[in-house]
């Protein structure tokens, strides 16, 4: 589904953040990318989602047999790529329901499917709200405005549940969550594991991985994947710390 080959990216000021990433993600798999602060985790998510401000200086990213880097951000999303933000953006004046319906219908139009009318949309929403333990009142508010940290993260996973992406990248979705919120979010993610869907979780800590068990774990350090393994690698990392990985590499 996703093939990253020797991906290098730098900031406008010339600082190279990604220094040759190789990663293969297949449909049905859950990958965890772990690493210390500043290792390039969020930059990788941003480059995959199409955020401006990064220059890809080398390498390729193939997504569903297409050149991902050649697509604008909105087209990537319509092709089934989803990014759950580490810091979800507040949109004052944009109603959450209206926003979500616009997003779903943009994607449906792209796939040549009929748009959802208000009634169909509402039924779809209600089914998923329960999953994320979100009250309907949250949907009547402006997107993320006045939401607590936990509400913002749940809203991200709720959007994922509504948009049903092929590839979901979750950027530090566990950060800032208390244990109850973490459970709810994890349940939401687990419910969305599917044979035709891949999930990439980017995280600093192992604790989310206790609830969402990954098939593969990668360690990112200084812009490179320095170690890969199965779920046991995450447990080991928690014990020995990232410093030891760097030494080993």
């Amino acid at each position, binding site marked *: 589904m996703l093939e990253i080959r020797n991906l290098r990216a730098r900031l406008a000021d010339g600082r190279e953040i990604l220094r040759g990433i190789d990663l293969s993600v297949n449909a049905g798999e859950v990958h965890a990318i772990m690493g210390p602060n500043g290792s390039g985790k969020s930059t990788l998510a941003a480059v995959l989602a199409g955020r401006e401000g990064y220059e890809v200086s080398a390498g390729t990213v193939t997504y569903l047999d297409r050149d991902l880097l050649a697509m604008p*951000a*909105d087209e990537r*999303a*319509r092709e089934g790529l989803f990014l759950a933000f580490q810091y979800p953006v507040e949109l004052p004046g944009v109603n959450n329901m209206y926003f979500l319906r616009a997003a779903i219908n*943009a994607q449906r139009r792209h796939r040549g499917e009929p748009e959802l009318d208000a009634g169909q949309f509402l039924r779809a929403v209600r089914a998923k709200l329960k999953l994320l333990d979100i009250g309907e009142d949250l949907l009547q508010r402006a997107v993320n405005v006045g939401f607590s940290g936990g509400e913002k993260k749940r809203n991200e996973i709720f959007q994922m549940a509504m948009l049903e992406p092929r590839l979901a990248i979750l950027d530090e979705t566990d950060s800032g969550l208390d244990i109850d919120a973490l459970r709810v979010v994890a349940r939401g993610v687990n419910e969305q594991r599917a044979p035709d869907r891949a999930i990439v979780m980017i995280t600093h800590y192992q604790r989310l991985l206790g609830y969402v068990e990954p098939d593969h774990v990668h360690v990112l350090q200084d812009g490179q994947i320095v170690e890969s393994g199965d779920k046991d690698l995450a447990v080991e990392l928690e014990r020995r710390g990232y410093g030891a990985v760097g030494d080993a590499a």
Partner: protein
Amino acid sequence: MSAVVDFPVKPQARPYLDAYDRLPSGEPEWLGAHRRRALARFAEKGFPDRRSEAWRYIDLRALEEQPMLPVGRIGDAVDAAVRKRFVEAAFSEAAYRLVLVDGRYAAELSRVDGLPSGVWLGGTATTIAERPDLVRAAFEAPHINAERPFTALNAAFFGDGFVLDMAPGVALDRPIEIVHLASMGTGASLHTRSFVTAGPGSRALILETFAGAGRYWRNDVVELQLAAGAEFRRVVLVEESADAFHIGELLAVLGPAARLASLVLLLAGRTVRHEATIRSDGAQTQCDLQGAFVLSGRQEANIVSTVDHAAPGGETREVFKGVAAERAHGAFQGRITVRPGAQKVDAHQLSQNLVLSPRAAIDTKPELEIYADDVKCSHGAAVGDLDEAALFYLRTRGIAHEEARRMLIAAFVREVIDRVGSAPLREHLLARLARRLAMLEK
């Protein structure tokens, strides 16, 4: 030129003087005398000078170079084109409606029956003929701004308008709609003058919509008197033709504990200016002023407001939003004055603006003049582009760039519409905004 004038005349005013002589009369003498005084004032002053602070942000040269003269009554017939435009512009949920076509009351399109007792709603010309007592005082003791050139020109030439008079305690909770349609497009000026008198404790909500076709100059003046405890909510929706000039003026005097809520949406027209001058004469007034302009092409718009707190305890809230794309130019000028002795006044003003292209511009000029020492007054102004992080967030959900921009612009402007209490009216305004934004090019 037949009239013998004994006052100085500015050259640009001359064609208007001549046009006055050609107009038929038949009005009461007190009105004629008033018109002649106003005409003399206009002749002396000429067009507003761009060097004057209140007019520095708007370009009136096209108006000055080619006179746009008033015309007399054309006829009563409402043709198919006017009817179509009326249907496009009208607010379907209005409880009462008064329509003016080319500045004249059009009975055929209006619906003013069934008003509660104690309420008068009629065309200004009809009112002058049938109930002169409702308007005569306003002419003979002009309360503010009689000296302004276009206000004077309006007094000299207005043919019609609307008059709303409410007895004490009357509540009109369902919206009244006034529709101004321009159909001739022949470069004439349309002068309308309206009067609202809200008796003590009365309440009303009014929507004034301006629309038209072709080239014309609209010069509209509304005088508003709110008695003690009266509550008046006014929405102005300007959707004039792309070749039209629109000069709108609101003159309001607020009695004790009166409440005025005003929303001005300037969405279309070549050059549009709205000025509100509000004198808070009574104590404990509440004044809620909101407005927005959405401009593209080479449109120009100017929102000007002056709130004069002459009594203690008043509260003023102002929020104005500006959007300018392409080569458009907008400006906001807002002055709040607190006179000596007007203690405990609480006044806040906010001007927020989006400039969407390098060749567009918005000027914003807040002014506070405070002569009392125990007041709370503040203002803020910002000019910027759309938030890149917000745009990216929308795009990562699959929403195309242009649609994402429109969503964010709508979100920016709708803050002023969201405060409209009537849900059907709010939906109507949001739909008009969406229609305007769909036409907005980058």
